[in-house]
């Protein structure tokens, strides 16, 4: 065993102390369920293990990605790795003993504070798993705070299937209905939303930037529709976009969910950091961990997990959520990244997400057979591109080492492109790949 720490003599002394000859004698497992087979896994040296796993990792293609769709890449400064990998952070447990885990608690308190600053809402938790599970939790919160019969939540028809599927699982238990309302030209059709809503709706959800890459032009009107029916207004967004956008609380958001892994985490096959903030009115219904400031015996400010009576280890089946292990270390990294950027840096990064995609669209639109963007409006990171055969274009781009994807929008299918600070300088490769596609329109 690679991390064995007992010498033969120590092991013998321990066996002697517990009164057995062999550790196997300590296993109180009936013979009938004893495993006498083999897993068939061969042990390896550290070097060989690295070689095995890294060789497999190298089987993936070397590509320039313009994918987005809920998982976004931004440059993460080296200092974030070096600090977050300090073992006192990385190898620590949940802060059940606050006196000895002040450092992490303070870092999480700072993360919560950053989310409060960005959203304008009074309460932010330590994290959810990702934006989809955060939306699921928001629907459950709405169900608890708006106890009306036949509850349902309204989501835009453009919500990605992947997110919808998670929401369906979260709302299955309490039997919350999930209905869609129409979008028009890529953004919320407020009149159609008003036609879709009734007093049995507990929550209206809208995202900015939305699944078409567009910034919603009038979320205040969406909030008003929700308000007219006493439904919670839940806004989906992300931590970088919030650096530039009006704080959701300013236009009436009751809950903000979304992705905070846009800070502190590069592309990692879809790992997320679910952001969850809400108005203080719902404090005792919040899912997940909360860190509060208090005092220690010496009268100094100190931090602790708080309002734990909401949580599963105390409240069991009446807990606000089953979440226990969350994404704390990624919240630490996101806060580090935000602090490294400072307000100037965060605004600049967000502005890059505005100009990068619009510059790319301009160049793509100039190509024969391509129209970009499909919808007018202000884009953030992503936009749709119209062309005759999007699937064939995706295949062609793959051959050129460029990853783009298609998106279905009603009966239409488009290309979707995502441009951030990390692939902005490689837009040439994308434009060349598209230009080299013979088909066009």
């Amino acid at each position, binding site marked *: 065993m690679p991390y064995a720490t007992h010498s033969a003599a120590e092991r013998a002394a321990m066996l002697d102390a517990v009164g057995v000859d062999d550790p196997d004698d300590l*296993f109180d497992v009936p013979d009938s369920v004893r495993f006498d087979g083999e897993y068939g896994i061969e042990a390896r040296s550290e070097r060989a293990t690295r070689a095995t796993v890294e060789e497999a990792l190298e089987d993936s293609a070397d590509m320039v990605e313009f994918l987005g769709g809920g998982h976004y890449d931004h440059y993460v400064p080296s200092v974030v790795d070096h600090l977050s990998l300090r073992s006192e952070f990385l*190898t620590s*447990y949940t802060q059940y003993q606050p*006196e000895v885990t002040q450092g992490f608690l303070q870092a999480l308190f700072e993360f919560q504070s950053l989310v409060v600053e960005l959203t304008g809402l009074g309460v932010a938790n330590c994290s959810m798993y990702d934006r989809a599970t955060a939306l699921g939790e928001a629907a459950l919160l709405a169900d608890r705070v708006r106890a009306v019969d036949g509850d349902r939540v309204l989501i835009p028809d453009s919500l990605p299937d992947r*997110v919808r599927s998670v929401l369906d699982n979260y709302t299955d238990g309490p039997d919350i209905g999930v209905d869609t309302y129409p979008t028009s030209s890529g953004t919320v059709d407020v009149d159609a939303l008003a036609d879709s809503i009734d007093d049995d709706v507990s929550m209206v959800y809208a995202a900015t930037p939305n699944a078409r890459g567009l910034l919603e032009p009038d979320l205040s009107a969406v909030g008003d529709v929700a308000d007219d029916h006493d439904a919670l207004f839940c806004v989906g967004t992300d931590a970088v976009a919030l650096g530039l956008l009006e*704080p959701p609380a300013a236009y009436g958001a009751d809950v903000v969910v979304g992705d905070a892994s846009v800070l502190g985490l590069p592309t990692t096959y879809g790992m997320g950091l679910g952001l969850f903030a809400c108005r203080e009115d719902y404090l005792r219904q919040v899912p997940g961990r909360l860190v509060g400031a208090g005092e220690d015996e010496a009268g100094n400010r100190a931090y602790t997990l708080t309002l734990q009576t909401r949580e599963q280890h105390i409240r069991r089946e009446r807990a606000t959520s089953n979440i226990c292990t969350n994404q704390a270390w990624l919240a630490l990294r996101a806060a580090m990244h935000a602090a490294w950027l400072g*307000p100037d840096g965060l605004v600049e990064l967000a502005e890059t997400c505005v100009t990068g995609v619009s510059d790319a669209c301009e160049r793509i639109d100039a190509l024969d057979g391509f129209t970009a963007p499909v919808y007018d409006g202000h884009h953030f990171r992503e936009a749709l591109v119209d062309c005759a055969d999007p699937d064939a274009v995706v295949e062609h781009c793959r051959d050129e080492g460029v990853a783009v994807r298609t998106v279905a929008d009603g009966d239409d299918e488009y290309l979707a492109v995502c441009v951030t600070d990390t692939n902005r300088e490689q837009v040439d490769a994308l434009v060349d790949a598209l230009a080299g596609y013979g088909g066009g329109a």
Partner: protein
Amino acid sequence: MSDDAPHQQARWYAGEQYEPLLSEKRTETVDVDSSLPDDLTRDELELPAPAEPELARHYTHLSQMNYGVESGPIPLGSCTMKYNPSFTEDIAAHPGNRVHPLRDDADKQGILRLCHELQDALATIGGMDAVTLQPPAGAAGEFTGIQVAKAYHAAEDDERSEVIVPESAHGTNFASAAMAGYDVVELPSNENGRVEVDALRAAVGSETALLMLTNPNTLGLFERDIEEIADIVHDAGGLLYYDGANLNSLLGKARPGDMGFDVMHFNLHKTFATPHGGGGPGQGPIGVREDLEPFLPTPQVRETDEGYETYAPAQSIGRVHEFLGNWLVLVKAYAYILRHGDEGLERVSETAVLNANYLASQIDYEVPYGPFHHEFVASADADAADVAKAMLDHGVHPPTTKWPEIVDEALMTEPTETESKARLDDLAAAFDAVAATDPEDLAETPTATAARRIDQAAAARTPRLSWHALDEE
């Protein structure tokens, strides 16, 4: 106590306070000037703006005011806080991980290959027929497993309303079952700390969807009647769920699938040593027997003649995470499994069980029940919360306290296999020093930690959850 304490945690001061908040160091407010129209953007943004050298000091100070497994042992019961091998972090840093999940399958063969190999390895270790890697934590695994079981029953046209959970079970079991819409039926333990078979027989029926069980249970006791328990549940048409939190005690020795479990979750951040990161990310894959495979989340990964591909199981419950949970946790856990191999994994469990039994034999507190596997629950003769605080002054992290409730003033202790005999002796010495301390003096502890005793009740009465709340005072 602090004068002769063997350990003093770093404590950074600035004036009358500990390490100041980022917001108290250097904050800037900028006017937001954007190419977007004004009505979409904020007017200004106020955020901390430390220069990088000060940022580095801030977090270095905070790290020094924090305790991890590399600081010392963390014998929290059912948490399996073992040493996290450093080399897996280097694997996680390999550029081959920088792959977007929406790539075409053919362009992410490396990721899919590792998924497939890890699915197979976990299925073998659990004695299960199929595994999904998707759930992003143990509790998410429970929720997924329950949803899969629900879909299975629904497909049989046999909808059921109850999930049975032993009183000593992890709180997440109750919460996950309730979240999935089930009524929770609590099962009392017998005088041996195990499931009372007659009580189970009385509790099961046509409404029983699942029995959720941890084996060994939270007292570290193997449920010796497991086959009979499985028969009772199966005869009633229910399924048996294995909570994998305590799997570190069974590697190479027994498999949940062989005991009759139909669904299980693995806690990769426990059994397979991925770092807990102060509360995540973890990962909670689930394994199922053959009949349940069609209901697993989408996508699954399979091997074909052309390589690896993703697919949606025929009657899939859909997704429980937008993508595949925490990829880097998966890759680190797989590296851990390969590094150990069959023999190493069996030695992990043998040593974990030896360590728990050795520690239990060395402490003065009463340890009811037994024989133990990887953890035991001692009973303090003082307030267990006070005992925990006093242990901090001895340079060790205390066990889980006051739970499970069937032991008075419980100290639920899981040392794991990576503690040396010398460390276990230190831990025993800490237990015994505290046991020998006047209970009234315990209330004065801890003093050797970054902060002194924190009034958690007061913090909950007046919630201050951001620096904005502090500014308002």
